[in-house]
């Protein structure tokens, strides 16, 4: 394998690490904000379930990233490298600003931007991008709907319960399960985006045929990278998600995480790369909206929304610039 491909694979794994660092904080935000686990144990819990997700999910999302965003002829090692650099730069910028944006959409935007600069808009696969684009809107709204529905069901089932202390204790235990489910969903969907990048590189350099599936070493290395990223996760975003958006009780945490996990499980099974950040944010807003609209801090939600809207074009522009630099240096 050529040295360029090895470098891109290492950068892809570094991106996966930053993804864990940036996005996986979402997995533990509600557990920490409801004080079910200390931050230290919460990250270990999330990282473990990020890693074991490969035992549950197939690699449909990886195939979508490698084969359904940009035509394979346009996916050279240089384009993939520039796309990754664009996504990483965007992630670091939004991390520095404390914005919970999507690493996944930064990656898709980065790949698309780097490829368009080299081959024009014809290299984009409109059907794949349309599905990803639709789920930018759908994943938080599905999470929100399920989050609200679960909250209403919980309120209806337990409205006669007088011993609130016992009820909270039960839900705090339940949150361990729902946080684990969400971390599984996060590992299952997000680690596969890196697998997709590595698969595209291996196909581009001819190490694998165009219709190849993801090799096991790629699966294991991607899950290891995201789990390590989670272990070193950042606290700026945890604070935005868990503390600033709305105040959560343990029952709300269970509802939010279960709703987001269900949405991620569905998306992973269908091979759709979605943002774990969008999904959990939608679910948290759904839980908050069950109380009253003022329970959700809309200024924070609005700031998050703008960051989402600019992620794909922003990452695409940054990756396009990197693509020109890589082309000039090559």
């Amino acid at each position, binding site marked *: 394998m050529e040295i360029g491909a090895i470098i891109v694979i290492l950068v892809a794994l570094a991106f996966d690490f930053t993804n864990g660092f940036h996005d996986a904080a979402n997995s533990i935000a509600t557990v920490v904000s409801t004080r079910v686990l200390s931050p230290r144990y919460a990250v270990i819990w999330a990282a473990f379930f990020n890693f074991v997700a490969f035992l549950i999910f197939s690699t449909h999302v990886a195939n979508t990233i490698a084969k359904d965003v940009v035509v394979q002829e346009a996916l050279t090692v240089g384009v993939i490298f520039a796309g990754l650099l664009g996504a990483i730069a965007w992630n670091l910028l939004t991390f520095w600003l404390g914005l919970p944006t999507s690493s996944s959409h930064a990656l898709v935007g980065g790949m698309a931007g780097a490829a368009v600069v080299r081959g024009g808009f014809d290299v984009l696969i409109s059907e794949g991008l349309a*599905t990803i684009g*639709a789920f930018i809107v759908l994943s938080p709204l599905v999470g929100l709907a399920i989050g609200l529905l679960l909250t209403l069901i919980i309120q209806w089932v337990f409205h006669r319960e007088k011993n609130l202390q016992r009820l909270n204790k039960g839900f705090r235990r339940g949150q361990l399960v729902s946080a684990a489910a969400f971390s599984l969903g996060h590992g299952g969907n997000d680690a596969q985006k890196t697998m997709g990048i590595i698969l595209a590189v291996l196909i581009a350099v001819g190490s694998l045929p165009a219709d190849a599936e993801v090799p096991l070493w790629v699966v294991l290395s991607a899950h290891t990278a995201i789990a390590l990223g989670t272990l070193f996760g950042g606290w700026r975003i945890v604070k935005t998600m868990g503390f600033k958006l709305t105040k959560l009780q343990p029952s709300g945490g269970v509802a939010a995480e279960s709703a987001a996990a269900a949405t991620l499980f569905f998306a992973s099974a269908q091979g759709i790369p979605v943002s774990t950040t969008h999904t959990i944010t939608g679910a948290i807003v759904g839980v908050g909206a069950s109380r009253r609209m003022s329970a959700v801090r809309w200024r924070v939600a609005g700031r998050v929304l703008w960051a989402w809207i600019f992620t794909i074009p922003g990452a695409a522009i940054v990756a396009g610039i990197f693509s020109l630099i890589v082309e000039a240096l090559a």
Partner: protein
Amino acid sequence: MNDRRAYFFLAAALAVLAVQGLVPQYRWLTLSVAVLYLVFALAFATANLSARRASIKKRQSLDRSTS
């Protein structure tokens, strides 16, 4: 209908329906979520109306008892 949640869920239903054309293969999902949002919108709107009606009745009965 002045519970803002009703308007919010109405807007959410419209947003889901707006992207439906991009993913015709998931029409069952988009339609189910849109219907769910419309049910939420209706539920919050009517719950708000009932609360307002009850408060008007209470005020009227108070007015009657004081006059």
